[in-house]
């Protein structure tokens, strides 16, 4: 934090006056001013001026002020762009390859529709980076991708990190719709796991075969090199586990792999609604947790129950947590609101902010680029009408790579709405 301010000051003293504000909407050079800049490290910088050039943050000036009448962007509050590791902007069944239940080689990068209006909605809700994953209808669905929610018409150009995680699921979703084969299999659903035990068996077989392939190439299978990378901890292992029994399965698998000296996976449990039930399991195994959106009455996916203080319980035990929105269906379920709901359950503001910015960035190793407002990082910035996550506050401005996605200037709001 202090380092951030110092480097900002140095740069600011050097060249601030030369920065003219005369630009088109397409520009990505801006002076962004806020009465309060909320860092995710516990600090608030008053009257902060953030300079954006070439899509990057080049200076942070505390105690600055925006000259009136220029083209600066200004708002009451400023935070880094939010990051959702479970945004679930997918193409339905086109986002899962159903040929095999174990499909670690599939890249979700090849099943993305950038023209889905959900991308724009997500970007305008203040979420600037998401982790896109295969749908959880396979046991191992494939490789997730970290990408920006707005920008060029190119998955490649929007990508922050290709092959960010290996994605899979434990629970009832990967066994849904499947049925046993009588005689020869008649369709692709007639040979897949039909129970949680079957799902667990698939996981264990995939992991042990991949581990065995180190010495015996004949044990390798399509995409097993990615499972191997996940065992080695080079690739985060992101598993959907709604309920306690599935969280247990994932943790026990991780511990088994470590006990057998087959590797040391970096485990991210996504949609772990019941993580509050046996939190010591997560402390012990050093698993990271992505929480699903808070349900209105507690009951949520796959019959699981999520307590209102789930985020607080995990935070107090220093379990790394991130919040997620599972899409932008309604204003009440978007990511900023999830942070507010986590706070209602007892999570401190700074932890809530971290859980939608720097914490998810660290989980998948993209914190060198995004997750906080820091000199040298991508200019992914959210401007707020008031204190972030308050019910009365809303996102009024969004920059992604320095490009305006939502213009906070009242008279230009519609012009930038593209």
């Amino acid at each position, binding site marked *: 934090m202090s380092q951030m301010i110092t480097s900002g000051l140095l740069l600011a003293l050097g060249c601030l006056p030369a920065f003219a504000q005369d630009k088109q909407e397409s520009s990505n050079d801006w002076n962004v001013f806020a009465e309060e800049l909320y860092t995710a490290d516990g600090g608030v910088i008053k009257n902060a001026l953030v300079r954006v050039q070439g899509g990057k943050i080049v200076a942070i000036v505390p105690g600055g002020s925006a000259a009136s009448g220029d083209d600066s962007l200004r708002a009451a509050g400023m935070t880094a762009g939010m990051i959702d590791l479970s945004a679930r902007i997918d*193409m339905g*069944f086109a986002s899962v390859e*159903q040929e095999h239940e174990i*499909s670690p080689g599939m*890249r979700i990068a*090849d*099943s993305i529709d950038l023209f889905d209006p959900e991308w724009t909605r997500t970007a305008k809700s203040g979420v600037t980076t998401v982790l896109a994953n295969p749908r959880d209808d396979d046991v191992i669905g494939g490789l997730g991708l970290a990408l920006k929610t707005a920008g060029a018409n190119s*998955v490649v150009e929007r990508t922050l990190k290709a092959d960010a995680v290996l994605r899979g699921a434990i629970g009832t979703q990967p066994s849904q719709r499947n049925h046993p084969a009588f005689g020869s299999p008649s369709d*692709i659903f007639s040979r897949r796991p039909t129970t949680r035990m079957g799902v667990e068996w698939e996981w264990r077989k995939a992991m042990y075969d991949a581990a065995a392939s180190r010495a015996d190439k004949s044990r390798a299978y399509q995409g097993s090199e990615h499972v191997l990378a996940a065992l080695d901890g080079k690739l985060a292992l992101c598993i959907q586990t709604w309920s306690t029994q599935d969280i247990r399965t994932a943790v026990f698998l991780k511990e088994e792999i470590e006990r057998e000296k087959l590797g040391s996976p970096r485990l991210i449990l996504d949609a772990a609604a019941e993580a509050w039930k046996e939190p010591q399991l997560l402390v012990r195994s050093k698993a990271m947790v992505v929480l699903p959106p808070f349900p209105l009455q507690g009951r949520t996916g796959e019959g699981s129950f999520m307590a209102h203080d789930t985020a607080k319980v995990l935070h107090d035990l220093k379990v790394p947590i991130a919040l997620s929105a599972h899409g932008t269906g309604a204003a009440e379920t978007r990511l900023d609101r999830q942070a507010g709901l986590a706070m209602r359950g007892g999570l401190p503001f700074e932890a809530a902010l971290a859980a939608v910015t720097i914490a998810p960035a660290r989980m998948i190793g993209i914190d060198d680029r995004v997750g906080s407002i820091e000199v040298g990082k991508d200019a992914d910035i959210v401007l707020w009408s008031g204190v972030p996550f308050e019910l009365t506050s809303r996102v009024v401005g969004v920059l992604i790579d320095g490009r305006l996605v939502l213009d906070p200037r009242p008279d230009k709001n519609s012009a930038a709405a593209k």
Partner: protein
Amino acid sequence: MLALVFTVFAALSPVQGSGTLAIQAKTLHLGDGRVLEKGILLVQDGKFRAVGAGADLPPGVRLIQHEGAITPGFVAAHDQHTLGEEAADGTRAMLPEASIADAFDPKAKELRLAARAGVTTLLLAPGASNLVGGQTAVVKTAGARVLQRKSHLALSLSSEALRLDTPPTSPMGAINVLQEELAGNAGVFAELKAGRLPVMIHAVERHEVLRSLEFATRNGLKGSIEGAPLAGELADEIKQSGLSVVLQPFSGGDSRRELRAALALATAGVPFAFGLDAPNAGPQVLRLSAAMCLREGMDRKALEKALFADAATICGVGDRVGRLERGLDADFLLWSGDPLDLTSRLQAIYVDGVRLDTH
């Protein structure tokens, strides 16, 4: 056949050897966008022998005057309806060695109708329901002669090629299968990688177009995107990829958004052409499409290239047809006036220097 020529051009002198013909038209539309006033075409042995402002005519050949325009024959860069139900094989996702040149019906009514509408060259493509449908072929519609047996490998990255009963079931599965085939580097896939065989990728939605572009760019593939009415909204990205575009023809009911997308292709300098797949529409829609583009404001040169030279290049037969140029096949059309004016009549069709009997 010659008798017919004489009835139209009563003043024609005796023809020397096998079909020598010299015509001076009010305008020669060369097919690459250029127009020559009072240009002369000299045709001999089925080829253009000379195209220019003046030509030394062989002795005994009289110059016929045509009070209208001459264009090359239209080249339509995609057609699958000629094949009917034969265009798709539902049993497998991949048929890389299948060749449409062996499968089409030379007596198909569609070919005859196309010829009579001035579409002298047509690319036949397998249907879009197979990830790898097979090899396209170029035919001359008059007489259904195969001009080129193997023009592209037809791929389909549209949702039409994804079925729940036959893998791959998803776009990422499809890309994965194709990447593995390319890595295997055998058969036609080796030809793709080496740049010897272009692809023709069927894509409909814009995200399918983007996926196709990224797939082609990643693997250094050449070829075209076909079937996406809004491809032009990604004109810059397509331009960058080096691919070209085949559009389906417009009919009266198409939205201006699609027309504007076509315009964007022309503005960005993306080579494009029209196919003939519009259901319930005859080959005349090609001219209608051109007129609609013109009305929307498309650059006329770009439009003429799309109908002739670029279409031929996209089909892989740019050295044979698509332009009025010395050495190319003498496929040309005689018009009563401006060919893109819908009130002009198509008066005569020549294929390989021989007038087509349209009666």
